[in-house]
Protein backbone atom coordinates (compact mmCIF):
# COMPACT_ATOMS: atom_id res chain seq x y z
CA UNK A 1 0.00 0.00 0.00
CA UNK A 2 1.12 3.52 -0.66
CA UNK A 3 1.79 6.11 2.02
CA UNK A 4 -1.33 8.07 1.13
CA UNK A 5 -3.50 5.02 1.51
CA UNK A 6 -1.91 4.28 4.86
CA UNK A 7 -2.64 7.82 5.99
CA UNK A 8 -6.29 7.28 5.02
CA UNK A 9 -6.41 4.00 6.95
CA UNK A 10 -4.90 5.66 10.04
CA UNK A 11 -7.28 8.59 9.84
CA UNK A 12 -10.39 6.44 9.36
CA UNK A 13 -9.54 4.14 12.27
CA UNK A 14 -8.57 7.08 14.49
CA UNK A 15 -11.87 8.73 13.61
CA UNK A 16 -13.79 5.57 14.54
CA UNK A 17 -12.00 5.20 17.87
CA UNK A 18 -12.38 8.89 18.71
CA UNK A 19 -16.09 8.74 17.85
CA UNK A 20 -16.48 5.82 20.25
CA UNK A 21 -14.60 7.77 22.93
CA UNK A 22 -16.75 10.84 22.33
CA UNK A 23 -19.91 8.74 22.53
CA UNK A 24 -18.71 7.28 25.83
CA UNK A 25 -17.91 10.77 27.11
CA UNK A 26 -21.29 12.08 26.03
CA UNK A 27 -23.01 9.14 27.73
CA UNK A 28 -21.62 10.05 31.16
CA UNK A 29 -24.67 11.24 33.12
CA UNK A 30 -24.76 14.75 34.53
CA UNK A 31 -25.82 15.13 38.13
CA UNK A 32 -26.40 18.60 39.64
CA UNK A 33 -24.57 20.24 36.77
CA UNK A 34 -21.40 18.13 37.03
CA UNK A 35 -20.43 14.95 35.24
CA UNK A 36 -20.99 11.92 37.46
CA UNK A 37 -18.05 9.84 36.21
CA UNK A 38 -18.89 6.65 38.04
CA UNK A 39 -22.60 6.55 37.24
CA UNK A 40 -24.05 4.03 34.80
CA UNK A 41 -23.66 4.99 31.16
CA UNK A 42 -27.01 3.47 30.23
CA UNK A 43 -29.34 3.36 33.27
CA UNK A 44 -30.86 -0.05 33.83
CA UNK A 45 -28.75 -1.74 31.13
CA UNK A 46 -27.20 -5.19 31.67
CA UNK A 47 -24.13 -5.13 33.98
CA UNK A 48 -24.18 -1.37 34.63
CA UNK A 49 -21.17 -0.31 32.59
CA UNK A 50 -19.45 2.84 33.80
CA UNK A 51 -17.07 5.28 32.14
CA UNK A 52 -13.83 4.22 33.92
CA UNK A 53 -14.30 0.55 32.98
CA UNK A 54 -15.26 1.52 29.42
CA UNK A 55 -12.22 3.80 29.15
CA UNK A 56 -9.96 0.98 30.33
CA UNK A 57 -11.21 -1.36 27.61
CA UNK A 58 -11.13 1.45 25.06
CA UNK A 59 -7.43 1.96 25.81
CA UNK A 60 -6.69 -1.76 25.49
CA UNK A 61 -8.63 -1.98 22.21
CA UNK A 62 -6.87 1.11 20.83
CA UNK A 63 -3.46 -0.32 21.74
CA UNK A 64 -4.29 -3.63 20.05
CA UNK A 65 -5.56 -1.92 16.90
CA UNK A 66 -2.51 0.35 16.78
CA UNK A 67 -0.12 -2.57 17.20
CA UNK A 68 -1.98 -4.58 14.53
CA UNK A 69 -1.73 -1.72 12.04
CA UNK A 70 1.96 -1.26 12.81
CA UNK A 71 2.53 -5.00 12.44
CA UNK A 72 0.93 -4.99 8.99
CA UNK A 73 2.80 -1.94 7.80
CA UNK A 74 6.18 -2.68 9.39
CA UNK A 75 6.36 -6.48 9.91
CA UNK A 76 7.71 -7.43 13.31
CA UNK A 77 11.26 -8.65 13.59
CA UNK A 78 12.18 -10.43 16.82
CA UNK A 79 15.21 -9.22 18.74
CA UNK A 80 17.06 -10.37 21.83
CA UNK A 81 17.23 -7.82 24.60
CA UNK A 82 17.96 -7.50 28.28
CA UNK A 83 16.04 -10.64 29.27
CA UNK A 84 18.03 -12.76 26.77
CA UNK A 85 14.80 -13.87 25.10
CA UNK A 86 13.52 -13.13 21.64
CA UNK A 87 10.69 -10.61 21.71
CA UNK A 88 8.61 -8.95 19.02
CA UNK A 89 6.74 -5.70 19.45
CA UNK A 90 3.58 -7.62 20.41
CA UNK A 91 5.49 -9.61 23.05
CA UNK A 92 6.77 -6.37 24.51
CA UNK A 93 3.24 -4.97 24.66
CA UNK A 94 2.12 -8.09 26.52
CA UNK A 95 5.05 -7.84 28.96
CA UNK A 96 4.23 -4.17 29.45
CA UNK A 97 0.52 -4.71 30.15
CA UNK A 98 1.06 -7.68 32.45
CA UNK A 99 3.87 -5.89 34.30
CA UNK A 100 1.76 -2.75 34.66
CA UNK A 101 -1.02 -4.77 36.27
CA UNK A 102 1.45 -6.11 38.83
CA UNK A 103 2.96 -2.64 39.37
CA UNK A 104 -0.51 -1.32 40.21
CA UNK A 105 -1.24 -4.25 42.53
CA UNK A 106 2.14 -3.78 44.22
CA UNK A 107 1.49 -0.07 44.64
CA UNK A 108 -1.92 -0.85 46.14
CA UNK A 109 -0.28 -3.29 48.53
CA UNK A 110 2.58 -1.10 49.70
CA UNK A 111 1.32 2.47 49.28
CA UNK A 112 -2.43 2.07 49.61
CA UNK A 113 -5.20 3.28 47.31
CA UNK A 114 -4.64 7.04 47.62
CA UNK A 115 -1.97 7.95 45.11
CA UNK A 116 -2.43 5.41 42.32
CA UNK A 117 -1.09 8.05 39.90
CA UNK A 118 2.32 7.01 41.13
CA UNK A 119 1.73 3.49 39.86
CA UNK A 120 0.58 4.94 36.53
CA UNK A 121 3.77 6.97 36.13
CA UNK A 122 5.86 3.97 37.19
CA UNK A 123 4.04 1.83 34.60
CA UNK A 124 4.73 4.34 31.84
CA UNK A 125 8.42 4.38 32.77
CA UNK A 126 8.33 0.57 32.81
CA UNK A 127 6.63 0.52 29.39
CA UNK A 128 9.33 2.78 27.97
CA UNK A 129 12.05 0.56 29.46
CA UNK A 130 10.46 -2.62 28.08
CA UNK A 131 10.08 -1.22 24.56
CA UNK A 132 13.59 0.21 24.63
CA UNK A 133 15.65 -2.55 26.19
CA UNK A 134 13.79 -5.87 26.41
Amino acid sequence: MTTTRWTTVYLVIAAIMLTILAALYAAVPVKDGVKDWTAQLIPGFWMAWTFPVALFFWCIASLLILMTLLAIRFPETPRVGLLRIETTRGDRLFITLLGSAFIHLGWLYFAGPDALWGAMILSLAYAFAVFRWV
Partner: protein
Amino acid sequence: MEKTQNNKAWFLVLPVLVLVAFSAILPLMTVVNYAFNDTFGNNQFFWAGIEWFDDMIHSERLRAALGRQVIFSLIILAIEVPLGIFIALNMPKKGFWASFCLVLMALPLLIPFNVVGTIWQIFGRVDIGLLGHTLAAMGVDYNYTNDPLDAWITVIVMDVWHWTSLVALLAYAGLQSIPQAYYQAARIDQATRWSVFRYIELPKMKGVLLIAVLLRFMDSFMIYTEPFVVTGGGPGNSTTFLSIDLAKMATGQFDLGPAAAFSIMYFLVILLISWVFYTVMTNLDRAESGEENR
Protein backbone atom coordinates in the same frame (compact mmCIF):
# COMPACT_ATOMS: atom_id res chain seq x y z
CA MET B 1 10.32 -18.84 -4.37
CA GLU B 2 9.10 -15.84 -2.48
CA LYS B 3 5.79 -16.39 -0.70
CA THR B 4 3.13 -13.82 -1.42
CA GLN B 5 1.87 -12.01 1.64
CA ASN B 6 -1.88 -11.65 1.69
CA ASN B 7 -3.15 -10.17 4.90
CA LYS B 8 -6.73 -10.31 3.65
CA ALA B 9 -6.79 -13.93 4.80
CA TRP B 10 -6.96 -12.62 8.36
CA PHE B 11 -10.57 -11.62 7.72
CA LEU B 12 -11.37 -15.35 7.52
CA VAL B 13 -10.80 -15.66 11.27
CA LEU B 14 -13.49 -13.07 12.00
CA PRO B 15 -16.23 -15.67 12.78
CA VAL B 16 -13.96 -17.29 15.36
CA LEU B 17 -13.20 -13.89 16.80
CA VAL B 18 -16.92 -13.22 17.21
CA LEU B 19 -17.38 -16.58 18.96
CA VAL B 20 -14.41 -15.96 21.26
CA ALA B 21 -15.70 -12.49 22.02
CA PHE B 22 -19.03 -13.93 23.06
CA SER B 23 -17.66 -16.87 25.06
CA ALA B 24 -14.46 -15.43 26.54
CA ILE B 25 -13.81 -11.73 26.05
CA LEU B 26 -17.24 -10.43 27.10
CA PRO B 27 -17.39 -12.67 30.21
CA LEU B 28 -13.89 -11.49 31.15
CA MET B 29 -14.99 -7.88 30.73
CA THR B 30 -17.99 -8.67 32.92
CA VAL B 31 -15.68 -9.95 35.65
CA VAL B 32 -13.66 -6.73 35.43
CA ASN B 33 -16.88 -4.75 35.71
CA TYR B 34 -17.98 -6.77 38.75
CA ALA B 35 -14.65 -6.02 40.42
CA PHE B 36 -15.34 -2.30 40.40
CA ASN B 37 -18.96 -2.46 41.55
CA ASP B 38 -20.97 -3.60 44.50
CA THR B 39 -24.08 -5.58 43.71
CA PHE B 40 -26.84 -7.38 45.55
CA GLY B 41 -28.09 -9.05 42.42
CA ASN B 42 -31.15 -7.96 40.47
CA ASN B 43 -28.93 -6.00 38.05
CA GLN B 44 -28.42 -3.26 40.68
CA PHE B 45 -24.88 -1.95 40.88
CA PHE B 46 -23.10 0.61 43.03
CA TRP B 47 -19.68 1.96 42.12
CA ALA B 48 -17.00 0.76 44.49
CA GLY B 49 -13.81 1.89 42.73
CA ILE B 50 -10.70 -0.02 43.76
CA GLU B 51 -12.08 -0.82 47.20
CA TRP B 52 -12.32 -4.56 46.50
CA PHE B 53 -8.79 -4.76 45.17
CA ASP B 54 -7.58 -2.91 48.26
CA ASP B 55 -9.58 -5.28 50.50
CA MET B 56 -8.46 -8.43 48.72
CA ILE B 57 -4.77 -7.63 48.44
CA HIS B 58 -4.58 -7.02 52.19
CA SER B 59 -6.85 -9.92 53.08
CA GLU B 60 -5.39 -12.47 55.47
CA ARG B 61 -7.81 -15.04 54.14
CA LEU B 62 -6.58 -14.72 50.57
CA ARG B 63 -2.95 -14.77 51.61
CA ALA B 64 -3.52 -17.92 53.64
CA ALA B 65 -5.29 -19.61 50.72
CA LEU B 66 -2.46 -18.57 48.37
CA GLY B 67 0.10 -19.98 50.81
CA ARG B 68 -1.74 -23.31 51.01
CA GLN B 69 -2.10 -23.34 47.24
CA VAL B 70 1.61 -22.81 46.60
CA ILE B 71 2.60 -25.43 49.17
CA PHE B 72 0.14 -27.90 47.66
CA SER B 73 1.40 -27.33 44.11
CA LEU B 74 5.03 -27.63 45.16
CA ILE B 75 4.41 -30.84 47.11
CA ILE B 76 2.57 -32.59 44.30
CA LEU B 77 5.21 -31.49 41.77
CA ALA B 78 7.97 -32.76 44.06
CA ILE B 79 6.24 -36.13 44.26
CA GLU B 80 4.69 -36.59 40.82
CA VAL B 81 7.61 -35.57 38.61
CA PRO B 82 10.30 -37.84 40.10
CA LEU B 83 7.77 -40.65 40.58
CA GLY B 84 6.54 -40.28 37.00
CA ILE B 85 10.10 -40.42 35.65
CA PHE B 86 10.86 -43.44 37.83
CA ILE B 87 7.78 -45.29 36.55
CA ALA B 88 8.55 -44.37 32.93
CA LEU B 89 12.12 -45.66 33.28
CA ASN B 90 10.88 -48.98 34.62
CA MET B 91 8.03 -49.56 32.20
CA PRO B 92 8.50 -52.32 29.59
CA LYS B 93 9.70 -50.86 26.31
CA LYS B 94 7.83 -53.16 23.92
CA GLY B 95 5.53 -56.14 23.67
CA PHE B 96 2.27 -57.01 25.40
CA TRP B 97 3.27 -55.65 28.78
CA ALA B 98 4.16 -52.26 27.32
CA SER B 99 0.61 -51.84 25.97
CA PHE B 100 -0.84 -53.28 29.16
CA CYS B 101 1.07 -50.78 31.30
CA LEU B 102 0.08 -47.88 29.03
CA VAL B 103 -3.62 -48.71 29.31
CA LEU B 104 -3.32 -49.24 33.06
CA MET B 105 -1.52 -45.91 33.47
CA ALA B 106 -4.11 -44.10 31.38
CA LEU B 107 -7.06 -45.34 33.46
CA PRO B 108 -6.91 -42.78 36.31
CA LEU B 109 -6.65 -39.97 33.74
CA LEU B 110 -9.97 -41.00 32.21
CA ILE B 111 -11.96 -40.75 35.43
CA PRO B 112 -13.92 -37.52 35.87
CA PHE B 113 -12.64 -35.25 38.63
CA ASN B 114 -15.68 -35.47 40.86
CA VAL B 115 -15.70 -39.27 40.58
CA VAL B 116 -12.06 -39.33 41.70
CA GLY B 117 -13.11 -37.14 44.62
CA THR B 118 -15.99 -39.45 45.50
CA ILE B 119 -13.81 -42.56 45.24
CA TRP B 120 -11.32 -41.14 47.73
CA GLN B 121 -13.99 -39.62 49.92
CA ILE B 122 -15.49 -43.07 50.45
CA PHE B 123 -12.15 -44.93 50.36
CA GLY B 124 -10.83 -42.85 53.25
CA ARG B 125 -13.90 -42.91 55.49
CA VAL B 126 -13.30 -44.54 58.83
CA ASP B 127 -16.75 -46.12 59.11
CA ILE B 128 -17.19 -47.71 55.66
CA GLY B 129 -14.08 -46.89 53.60
CA LEU B 130 -11.58 -49.64 52.86
CA LEU B 131 -8.53 -47.47 53.57
CA GLY B 132 -9.95 -45.62 56.57
CA HIS B 133 -11.41 -48.75 58.13
CA THR B 134 -8.24 -50.80 57.62
CA LEU B 135 -6.08 -48.06 59.10
CA ALA B 136 -8.43 -47.76 62.07
CA ALA B 137 -8.33 -51.54 62.58
CA MET B 138 -4.53 -51.37 62.56
CA GLY B 139 -4.70 -48.78 65.32
CA VAL B 140 -3.70 -45.79 63.16
CA ASP B 141 -5.50 -42.63 64.20
CA TYR B 142 -6.57 -41.48 60.74
CA ASN B 143 -9.55 -39.22 60.09
CA TYR B 144 -9.48 -36.73 57.24
CA THR B 145 -12.59 -34.93 58.46
CA ASN B 146 -11.06 -34.01 61.82
CA ASP B 147 -7.34 -33.82 61.37
CA PRO B 148 -5.80 -31.21 59.00
CA LEU B 149 -2.68 -33.30 58.42
CA ASP B 150 -4.74 -36.37 57.48
CA ALA B 151 -6.83 -34.21 55.16
CA TRP B 152 -3.69 -32.89 53.47
CA ILE B 153 -2.23 -36.38 53.10
CA THR B 154 -5.50 -37.64 51.58
CA VAL B 155 -5.75 -34.79 49.09
CA ILE B 156 -2.10 -35.11 48.06
CA VAL B 157 -2.20 -38.90 47.72
CA MET B 158 -5.39 -38.53 45.68
CA ASP B 159 -3.75 -36.05 43.33
CA VAL B 160 -0.68 -38.28 43.00
CA TRP B 161 -2.94 -41.24 42.25
CA HIS B 162 -4.85 -39.24 39.66
CA TRP B 163 -2.07 -37.42 37.83
CA THR B 164 1.26 -39.20 38.18
CA SER B 165 0.30 -41.26 35.10
CA LEU B 166 0.29 -38.10 33.01
CA VAL B 167 3.90 -37.34 33.93
CA ALA B 168 4.82 -40.99 33.47
CA LEU B 169 3.21 -41.19 30.02
CA LEU B 170 4.88 -37.98 28.86
CA ALA B 171 8.25 -39.10 30.19
CA TYR B 172 7.72 -42.51 28.56
CA ALA B 173 7.04 -40.85 25.20
CA GLY B 174 10.23 -38.82 25.64
CA LEU B 175 12.22 -41.97 26.44
CA GLN B 176 10.84 -43.87 23.43
CA SER B 177 12.14 -41.18 21.09
CA ILE B 178 15.79 -41.72 22.10
CA PRO B 179 17.60 -43.68 19.36
CA GLN B 180 19.25 -46.97 20.39
CA ALA B 181 22.62 -45.68 19.16
CA TYR B 182 22.91 -43.44 22.22
CA TYR B 183 22.58 -46.42 24.56
CA GLN B 184 25.03 -48.47 22.50
CA ALA B 185 27.58 -45.67 22.69
CA ALA B 186 27.04 -45.46 26.44
CA ARG B 187 27.59 -49.24 26.77
CA ILE B 188 30.84 -49.02 24.80
CA ASP B 189 31.99 -46.26 27.15
CA GLN B 190 30.93 -48.44 30.11
CA ALA B 191 28.71 -45.67 31.39
CA THR B 192 26.96 -46.32 34.69
CA ARG B 193 23.16 -46.43 34.89
CA TRP B 194 23.23 -43.03 36.56
CA SER B 195 25.33 -41.39 33.84
CA VAL B 196 23.04 -42.86 31.17
CA PHE B 197 20.13 -41.24 32.98
CA ARG B 198 21.93 -37.99 33.69
CA TYR B 199 23.55 -37.40 30.28
CA ILE B 200 21.26 -39.20 27.81
CA GLU B 201 17.77 -39.74 29.14
CA LEU B 202 17.25 -36.57 31.19
CA PRO B 203 18.43 -34.11 28.51
CA LYS B 204 16.29 -35.88 25.90
CA MET B 205 13.27 -35.75 28.20
CA LYS B 206 13.75 -32.07 29.06
CA GLY B 207 11.12 -30.82 26.61
CA VAL B 208 8.34 -33.21 27.60
CA LEU B 209 9.19 -32.83 31.28
CA LEU B 210 8.81 -29.06 31.02
CA ILE B 211 5.38 -29.60 29.48
CA ALA B 212 4.54 -32.06 32.26
CA VAL B 213 5.64 -29.60 34.95
CA LEU B 214 3.69 -26.80 33.31
CA LEU B 215 0.53 -28.88 32.99
CA ARG B 216 0.73 -30.27 36.50
CA PHE B 217 1.52 -26.89 37.99
CA MET B 218 -1.32 -25.10 36.26
CA ASP B 219 -3.80 -27.88 36.98
CA SER B 220 -2.86 -28.11 40.63
CA PHE B 221 -2.85 -24.34 40.96
CA MET B 222 -6.45 -24.28 39.78
CA ILE B 223 -7.55 -27.47 41.55
CA TYR B 224 -11.12 -27.35 42.77
CA THR B 225 -13.30 -30.40 42.33
CA GLU B 226 -11.33 -33.18 44.02
CA PRO B 227 -10.52 -31.47 47.35
CA PHE B 228 -13.97 -29.91 47.32
CA VAL B 229 -15.62 -33.33 47.10
CA VAL B 230 -13.28 -34.99 49.61
CA THR B 231 -12.82 -32.38 52.32
CA GLY B 232 -14.94 -29.42 51.21
CA GLY B 233 -11.95 -27.24 52.12
CA GLY B 234 -11.93 -28.48 55.70
CA PRO B 235 -11.33 -29.30 58.44
CA GLY B 236 -11.66 -25.60 59.22
CA ASN B 237 -9.91 -23.92 56.32
CA SER B 238 -6.95 -26.27 56.17
CA THR B 239 -7.51 -27.53 52.61
CA THR B 240 -9.22 -24.40 51.26
CA PHE B 241 -7.19 -23.69 48.13
CA LEU B 242 -7.55 -20.59 45.99
CA SER B 243 -10.39 -21.70 43.75
CA ILE B 244 -12.32 -23.27 46.61
CA ASP B 245 -12.04 -20.00 48.51
CA LEU B 246 -13.03 -18.10 45.39
CA ALA B 247 -16.12 -20.24 44.83
CA LYS B 248 -17.07 -19.89 48.51
CA MET B 249 -16.78 -16.13 48.23
CA ALA B 250 -18.63 -15.79 44.94
CA THR B 251 -21.42 -18.35 45.12
CA GLY B 252 -21.52 -19.09 48.85
CA GLN B 253 -21.45 -15.61 50.30
CA PHE B 254 -22.50 -13.87 47.07
CA ASP B 255 -19.67 -11.32 47.52
CA LEU B 256 -19.40 -10.87 43.77
CA GLY B 257 -17.29 -7.69 43.87
CA PRO B 258 -14.48 -9.03 46.10
CA ALA B 259 -14.64 -12.40 44.32
CA ALA B 260 -14.21 -10.69 40.95
CA ALA B 261 -11.23 -8.67 42.22
CA PHE B 262 -9.83 -11.90 43.65
CA SER B 263 -10.26 -13.77 40.36
CA ILE B 264 -8.60 -11.00 38.36
CA MET B 265 -5.54 -11.22 40.59
CA TYR B 266 -5.67 -15.03 40.37
CA PHE B 267 -5.89 -14.74 36.57
CA LEU B 268 -2.92 -12.36 36.45
CA VAL B 269 -0.78 -14.74 38.48
CA ILE B 270 -1.71 -17.66 36.21
CA LEU B 271 -1.08 -15.54 33.12
CA LEU B 272 2.36 -14.61 34.44
CA ILE B 273 3.32 -18.19 35.26
CA SER B 274 2.06 -19.48 31.91
CA TRP B 275 3.99 -16.79 30.09
CA VAL B 276 7.21 -17.63 31.95
CA PHE B 277 6.80 -21.34 31.15
CA TYR B 278 5.92 -20.65 27.53
CA THR B 279 8.90 -18.35 27.07
CA VAL B 280 11.27 -20.81 28.69
CA MET B 281 9.90 -23.63 26.51
CA THR B 282 10.10 -21.78 23.19
CA ASN B 283 13.58 -20.51 23.97
CA LEU B 284 14.67 -24.01 24.91
CA ASP B 285 13.37 -25.35 21.61
CA ARG B 286 15.18 -22.62 19.76
CA ALA B 287 18.41 -23.31 21.62
CA GLU B 288 18.09 -27.03 20.84
CA SER B 289 17.43 -26.59 17.13
CA GLY B 290 20.25 -24.03 17.04
CA GLU B 291 22.64 -26.62 18.46
CA GLU B 292 21.63 -29.22 15.88
CA ASN B 293 22.12 -26.81 13.00
CA ARG B 294 25.61 -26.00 14.09
